[in-house]
């Protein structure tokens, strides 16, 4: 299933709410969490990461990966954290509204 427009950003934020991660780990994490239902194209993921960094929602730092290589780690900023909260509740309302319509039919 392809991602709905604008979903990727919030998924990234949610992923990072568990702690700092590099891009590859984020991609893997999303895949695992959605049981491979959602496929995130790597190109889109990295573009989103840098875009979010530019918006100040996440910040990055170079660190060492599990296999001892230099990797770029991303983590949420304060703004990112509140953005995630806001978007989560927005998603919930949206989803509930859509379900309400779909289930009355």
């Amino acid at each position, binding site marked *: 299933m392809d991602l709905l427009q604008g979903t990727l950003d919030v998924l990234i934020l949610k992923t990072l709410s568990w702690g700092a991660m590099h891009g*590859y780990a984020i991609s893997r994490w999303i895949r695992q969490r959605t049981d491979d239902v959602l496929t995130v194209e*790597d190109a889109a993921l990295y573009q989103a990461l840098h*875009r979010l960094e530019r918006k100040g929602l996440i910040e990055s730092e170079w660190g060492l990966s599990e296999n001892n290589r230099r990797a770029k780690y991303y983590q949420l900023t304060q703004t990112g954290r509140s953005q995630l909260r806001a978007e989560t509740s927005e998603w919930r309302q949206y989803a509930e509204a859509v379900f309400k319509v779909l289930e009355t039919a």
Partner: protein
Amino acid sequence: MKRIRDIRPAFRLPWVSASRVRREVDDELRFHLDMKVQELIDAGASPAEAENRARAEFGDLEYTRRYLNDTDRARMHHERRAALGDELRQDIRFAFRQLRRSPAFTIIALVTLALGIGANTAIFSVVRGVLLSELPYAEPNRLIRVYSKVERGMTSVSPADFNDWRRQSTSFSALAASDESTVNLTGNGTAERFAQARVSANMFQLLGVRVVLGRAFAPGEDAPDAPRVVILSDGLWRSRFGGDPGVIGKSIRLDDSPTEVIGVAPPEMRYPSSVDLWLTTRFTPKDLSDANRGARWIDVIARLAPAATREQAQSEMNAIARQIELQDPKHNAGYSTRLVPLRDDMVGSVRPALIVLLAAVGFVMLIACANVASLMLGRTAARESELAVRTALGAGRGRLVRQLLTESCCLALAGGMMGLGLAYAGTRLLLSLAPSDIPRLYNVALDAPVLLFTVAMTAVAALFFGSIPALQASAAQAVLHLRAGDRGSRTRPGSARARNALVVTEITLALMLLVGAGLLIRSFSRLREVDPGFAPARVSTFTVTLSPVKYETVEQQRAFSKTLLDAIHRIPDVDSAAVTFGLPLSGTSFQLSYDVEGRPAPPPNAEPRAQVRIVSPGYFATVGIPLVRGRAFSDADRPGGPRALVVSQETVRRYFPGEDPIGKHIAFGWRRDGDRLSGAIVGVVGDVRQHGLSAAVTPHVYAAWDQWPLDEITVVMRSRGDPAVALRDARAAVTSLDRDLPVYDAFTLESMVDRALGQPRFYVLLLTIFAALAVVLAVVGIYGVIAYTVQQRTREIGIRIALGASRERVVGMVVRRGLMLALAGIMLGSAAAYAVSRVLQSLLYGVGARDPITFIAVAALLGVVAVLASWVPARRAARVDPLAAMRAEG
């Protein structure tokens, strides 16, 4: 970790180069692909297969690489800008806190800067208004004043020469003539005398001036028989005619001749000067004839033709003048022309003085800046420990320099604003003090270019006094000062040297200013001692000019002046009175050449010349010109009788050396009704100054009023009481004789002498103020440096005193230090002043530009002042308590 992250951005800008951004993006993507490849290999793929699949699954790799690059670069840029803004706000807040923390420093620096900037702006506004601003005419740089030139100088032009120039020259697109006089306006309201200019019909067109109402003169309206038309000045139109547009086409009475108003000139039209009305020249065939080529009385301006240069025009005019000279050697032998740009011609006389003032005030600014720089250096040294702490916390050298520069800029800005306030007051003061004979003063204002000058000067000042301490601070090896116990209270030799150099510079500049002021003061006192040749006390004067219609004949003019003089004599306060044509010091020039009977005709241009004055009996006694030999005029010098002339001593010295002039007959070229001005010399009187107190005396010849009466009558009266009362009574007397006769040029001779001193007094006053300011600033500078040294050396002084040095010795030691600095500055300043004081030469009278007395007095004055400035901190040094001083950290 967290804390360092917070502090670092406060002192250092985030800065990642473009290549580093690229490298990081590459690294990040490579890491991702490697991880993916490893994952696929682990799942059983071959390495080559894995690499291909990883790339394929990634999506558009190259586009992403570019996208990440651009995004990161944009982020860096944005962060850097935000950080800069933060930093600037931080710096400014910090600067204000620092300035508030040392109010003494801040106030001294601000006052110094405000004075410097204020004085500079005020003087610059005058220089710009008078010297620099363009004339308000079309293409003003192509306007040229044309003079006739002979060996003894530049003169006005004769109508005949003007006519020939106009016909023959091709370098000019137009030439126009003018002459200025006064005219009686009668009819509506009281009779008043106004300044008029008679100009060629093309004058307005030549200047490119458009009338605001009506029309300018039409071609041909300057013909002798054309109808009389007049253009009013904006001022006259508003004051006398209430700004009524209906005045166009009306007839007004000028010197009793009806004249039609055809236009109103715009306020900026001020050529040939700020006159009230413009009429046309009306050269008669007689004016234009060769016989009158010697009568040079009109002023000529020209506009260069589009392709012509002034040099071309000058050489063409030289050729034309040479041709006229050959045609008419009797009048024009030795006459060529001289072309002067119109603006230079208007302001050339005051340029040297204004430039000297501008330079002087510039010096004051330099001294002010040096002073503030020196103050800041002292403060920077005292703040070294603070700067060291900031360096340790991660502040880069650039950041510290920027912080110090921010402080300087805040100071300069505040100083500049205060300076602007001072400049506003200063400019008004200058204008109220300035003598009215400085041209174009009406043009002086604090306008945009002047404000721009102030802003530029403020910026330069901030850079100048800000960069010296900033450089010092950046050179400091600040970290060293962090060592325990050392609070950075030792002066680094570099900082001390810089402050010494600044103080020496200040004294050098102050000395140069003092020399300038001293020379002008001495010159001014010489000028005041000049004997004008007459006794102005309690003598007043006024002038009337008779209407050529009502008083057409010489007999009528003679009769009126006699009636008038009788009326004046009846005023109870008046002791004696006389009439004259031309007063001393008035600048009125009626210079004529003459022949001495019985002498061979001299070559052209070598004839004897004199300023001719026509006076009634009693003139010499009334004005106080002493009779040296022979007799003065008396009532016996009657119209029909033998013509008598009185000459001045200079005439005798120059033209009758070793001879007795009494009894000699002389005859001038000037005729009236065919009658040559001539007569026998009956007496010799003292010389009077004619063109100002500093100008050389000119030979004078006086003729008897009754024998040569004129329509322009200047009355002089010596009164017992207040001259103002006599003048009031005299006005009443004139009105009772002729209601339509306006009295003008009414003043006391004392005010006239005073006016002659106006410009020198103005310059001497300003230069003295600037020099005094310079000395005060220099004193503050010396005091600051010495006081600072004493404070730095407290411990050393304490040890000296403890070891038995007498307090006198300590005082001597400190004062000697101040004196050494002063002596260095005095020597440098004297040498510099010696080199450049020649620029003052044209402003000096009776004193050389290298007058040794001035140089010595000024040097001594500065030396004494320097000693006093060092003595105060020296005494404080001598009072140091040795024990306390040694205990103190030092």
